């Protein structure tokens, strides 16, 4: 009974895991898989010797992660607090229905929509042009690329991101607010001393998951827009692997970078989890 599903998992999930061996080979597309010459750690040289292109991809990846942890991560928390403070359940539901929708759209659609608003002949530039003002290049400006990515992620996923926080907020005992009010706590003090502790465990959990994903930043989103801003500004580790491997044929090197990336990601999740335990929070898993 388990066989068909198990075979699919093994073939397309575990077999590729073995395929990572080509990171230690000089892979050539016309040589059968597994027959390529072994070259030891040669493919890893770009990492250890600090190849400029690789370092640039690493730098962009980490920069995007930092920016998104600062701007994207808190957005659903703020929105959830706002929604939670609404007195009318009906308004809340209408707003939720609207704001959850973008989550279900593909990146292709989201970027196509952004182009209609921010593109050269998009809504904003049309407006500027018809009012005799200069146009702004939102989509092709390398310096604004991270801001563009960040605004797209916020547009797509902030609404959806509120779900877990809204659920956590309903778990807070209303008696705590009452007690705080009796003690004379202002609304802001109630927020700080009752609400924040009530959702702190969830915030830490999600932050751990996000940090574990530090090296993965919006691959589809970036690859779709890369030709507008050029590779130096937009190359991240995943696009580096794709561009150098699949497109440029450096299979071994790309696989090596991908493998190291995967291993570091596992270490990051385990490490972040450990830190959470030290601070007395639950973390992703229990020992």
């Amino acid at each position, binding site marked *: *009974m*388990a066989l*068909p*599903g198990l075979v*699919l*998992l093994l073939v*397309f999930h*575990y077999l*590729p*895991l073995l*395929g*990572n061996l080509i990171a230690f080979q000089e*892979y050539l597309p016309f040589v059968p*898989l597994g027959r390529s010459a072994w070259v030891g750690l040669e493919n890893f040289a770009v990492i250890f010797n600090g190849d400029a292109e690789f370092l640039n991809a690493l730098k962009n990846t980490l920069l995007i992660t930092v920016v998104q942890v600062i701007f994207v991560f808190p957005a659903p928390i703020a929105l959830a607090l*706002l929604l*939670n*403070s609404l*007195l009318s359940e009906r*308004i809340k539901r209408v*707003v*939720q229905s609207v*704001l*959850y929708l*973008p989550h*279900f*759209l*593909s*990146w*292709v*659609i989201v*970027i*196509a*929509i952004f*182009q*209609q*608003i921010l593109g050269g*002949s*998009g*809504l904003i530039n049309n407006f500027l042009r*018809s009012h005799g003002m200069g146009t702004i290049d939102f989509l092709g400006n390398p310096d604004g690329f991270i801001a563009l990515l960040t605004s797209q992620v916020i*547009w797509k996923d902030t609404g959806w991101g509120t*779900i*877990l926080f809204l*659920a956590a907020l309903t778990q807070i005992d209303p008696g705590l607010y009452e007690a705080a009010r009796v003690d004379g706590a202002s*609304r802001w003090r*109630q927020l700080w001393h009752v*609400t924040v502790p009530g959702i702190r465990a969830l915030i830490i959990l999600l932050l751990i998951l996000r940090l574990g994903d530090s090296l993965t930043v919006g691959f589809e989103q970036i*690859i*779709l*827009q890369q030709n507008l801003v050029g590779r130096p500004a937009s190359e991240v580790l*995943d696009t580096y*692997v794709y561009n150098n491997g*699949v497109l440029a044929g450096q299979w071994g090197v*790309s*696989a090596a970078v*991908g*493998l190291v990336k*995967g291993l570091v990601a*596992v270490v990051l999740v385990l490490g972040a989890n450990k830190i959470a335990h030290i601070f007395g929070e639950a973390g*992703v898993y229990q020992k």
Partner: protein
Amino acid sequence: MSTIQRGIDDGPAMSSRVLKTVVLVVCCAFVIIPFIGVIATSIASQEHVTNSGGFVLWPDGLNLDAYKAIFNGGVVQRALLISVVIATGGTLISLAGSTMLAYALSRPGSFGQRPILLIVLFSLLFSPGLIPNYLVVKEFGLLDSLLALILPTAISGFNVIVLRSFFMGIPDSVLDSARIDGAGDFRIFWSIVLPLSKAVLAVVGLFYAVGYWNAFFNAMLYINDTAKWPLQLVLRTYVINNTELSSGDLGGASADQLPPQESIQMAILVVSLVPILIVYPFLQRHFAKGMLTGAVKG
């Protein structure tokens, strides 16, 4: 953000209520207005679109020329058909594989249950990487085959776990009584377990279907033959990269009759949006629940 608790508040100040309303209205407008513009541009008249510089926020009437152009037998219509085939075929394959796997895992003591469960759980923790994935698909001769868009993503460990926890809720006594009546494992699965699980099957099926419908990168990676492009790739080429749709791409309509490119582009966008909008009410209700279940169990 002045009041935190719901219902039991002594009434927030007027100013904070106004502020909250303004913030939420702005948030909703940011999401809704682009959609209105996309639909409006797809149905506005040629002059209106041209005079507005290519994107209108409100149509001047109902003009379906752009839709007629893309449903005239060209690349868009073909891509739509391919996407429908992938989404339905893929969902069926995914559901078949996932439910059977999940059912086998839901009965403690069935053959190999522990190791198989570990294999499923472990698959959630890592991804093997782009290059090895590509090489496996290539070695199996699946490049330029629609199966390359289905089989690699057919089994989602997360969905298997969701199905498994539902199946575990079916009491053993129900299945035992069928077994005493002489039903085999498959018979029990098909005639008892699946009919009892219609709700969760619908949810997981939608999960998979939306995933197949939205998938873009695998198609870009594995499908070079433009005749086999799904809709998302057509969207990228003709809308994002702004490649002009010639009359040949649109089933041979004569060039001077073509509606403006902007309208055609927005019509393609609408066509790819419609299936998501149709299932959205279900998605919203059940996915939110599913996400919470996953979170509680995780």
